[in-house]
């Protein structure tokens, strides 16, 4: 059984442009092939508009491919069957799932009940993750009063409290200070190691990419220009892509 398998995955969008009669067709993803067979941390990298978020949406089943196929745990994500949904978690750096008027515990407790875990287990897991994330003292504060870093931490807790086998994160550290960013990187690493879960994330931050990546997928204008091990990527030196050259130079600068 593969964890993720994408075959010739295409996705295009039609956009209405002001003043133009015909809709503009944009190829967001073009013949993407990807196979993940064992638990790993896959980082999807690319410039803005490269197709990273579109690929995550396809993996989550929020949109359907125009052609080609994507399977997660050998299932079509777009079917959104219960077994699939119970095995995934999702965090967006730019979208909130917690109720702003209530405490993180209230929101997370109710949302977790739908994953067939008992109240006792929810409370136990919540307390454990609050300790790990160092947010124990903020768990009873209304979400709207929390800082961005604290909110993201609680959003991650909400997404992993049911211990999903695969966790999708779309730019989870966007806008965070370096301390919060570091702590989230550590937490994700620990979660991956302790639970043997797969993590798929998109990020523009070199620190996230360097610290987390085991597998790498680089997208450029909807095309896959690198797919494989992160270490192999670091050791390879034969790409003609301008993006890859710049990206490598950024990675080197960070050292």
């Amino acid at each position, binding site marked *: 059984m593969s964890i993720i398998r994408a075959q010739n995955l295409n996705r295009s*969008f039609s956009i209405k442009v002001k003043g133009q009669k015909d809709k503009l067709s944009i190829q967001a993803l073009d013949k993407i092939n990807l196979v993940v067979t064992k638990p790993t941390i896959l980082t999807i990298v690319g410039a803005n508009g490269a197709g990273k*978020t579109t690929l*995550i*949406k396809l993996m*989550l*089943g*929020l*949109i*359907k491919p125009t052609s080609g196929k994507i399977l997660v745990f050998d299932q079509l994500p777009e079917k*959104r069957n*219960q077994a699939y*949904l*119970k095995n*995934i978690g*999702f965090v*967006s750096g*730019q*979208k909130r*799932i917690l*109720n702003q*008027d*209530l405490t993180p*515990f*209230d*929101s997370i*407790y*109710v*949302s977790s*009940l*739908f*994953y*067939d875990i008992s*109240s006792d287990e929810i*409370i136990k897991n919540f307390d454990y993750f609050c300790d790990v994330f160092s947010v124990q003292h903020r768990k009873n504060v*209304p979400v709207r009063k929390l800082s961005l870093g604290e909110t993201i931490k609680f959003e991650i807790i909400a997404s992993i409290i049911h211990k999903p086998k695969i966790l999708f994160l*779309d730019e989870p550290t966007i806008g965070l200070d370096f301390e919060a960013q570091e702590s989230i990187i550590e937490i994700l690493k620990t979660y991956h190691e302790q639970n043997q879960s797969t993590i798929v994330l998109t990020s523009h931050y070199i620190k996230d990419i360097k610290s987390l990546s085991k597998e790498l997928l680089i997208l450029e204008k909807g095309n896959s220009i690198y797919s494989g091990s992160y270490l192999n990527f670091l050791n390879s030196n034969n790409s003609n892509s301008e993006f890859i050259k710049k990206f490598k130079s950024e990675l080197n600068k960070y050292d």
Partner: protein
Amino acid sequence: MTEIIKYERILGKTLYKWFALLYLHFKSFANYRVNIVSYLFSQFLTIAGTLIIWYYSISNGVESIEFKEIVSYYLIGQIFLIKITPQWSISEDIQYGNFSNKLLKPESVWISYIVEDLGVNLFTNFIKIILSVAVALIFFSYIVLPSNPLTYLLFLVSILLAFIISILINFIFSFITFYVVNSHGILELLGQAQRFFSGWLFPLDIISLTRIFTFLPFAFTYYYPVQIFLERQTIEQSVQNLGFGFLSIFILFFVCHSIYHNGLKQYESIGL
């Protein structure tokens, strides 16, 4: 939320999770006391204003209905017909991409919106009922109660139908957002249509022109249930109308289902 954990054993797992979701949204609404007090005054003004307008209209020449009948017609509807308004949150969620959060949860999207809305509206429905009962007590001699016990049963069925039809109509209008992106105007139209075509503003049969609206599904959400309670129809007519109500549910469900599933194909989950 620890205050409700004790109900988990009593309700069982499935029912408890929906109860917890309802309670969460009730709690979220109940956080804002100024909002609650404002709602109380707004309901009071609506009820008092409506009755005053009718009192003066009937005193000054509207002959097709008596004030006594209007008091019953209006208050019975206010007390027994539940306010449900999920259209605003559904539409906003679709427009701004937050609908994805619902799609990614292992729960029924439709039921979850209904339960959340019931939670949010629990207090407002409670205030509406309490105020209407208080006014009904003042006008008690005006309230017409059913003489036939069977009427109560038919009324109960009609309330259930009204609830389901209201939800389906709300869903259909909110799912239009999948196709038009911003549907605030459409939802405003829905709000006015609900008031006008349902018989909330006035009984649809008092003006011959508006009788045509009794053929629309909106009429099952207010006009028909109150007509049944006030025994303004024979038992046979009531049963027949309930039959049409059930038929409306099937048609509306089919429309709703197809708008929803075709809409999902267009959904782009903005900002993920």
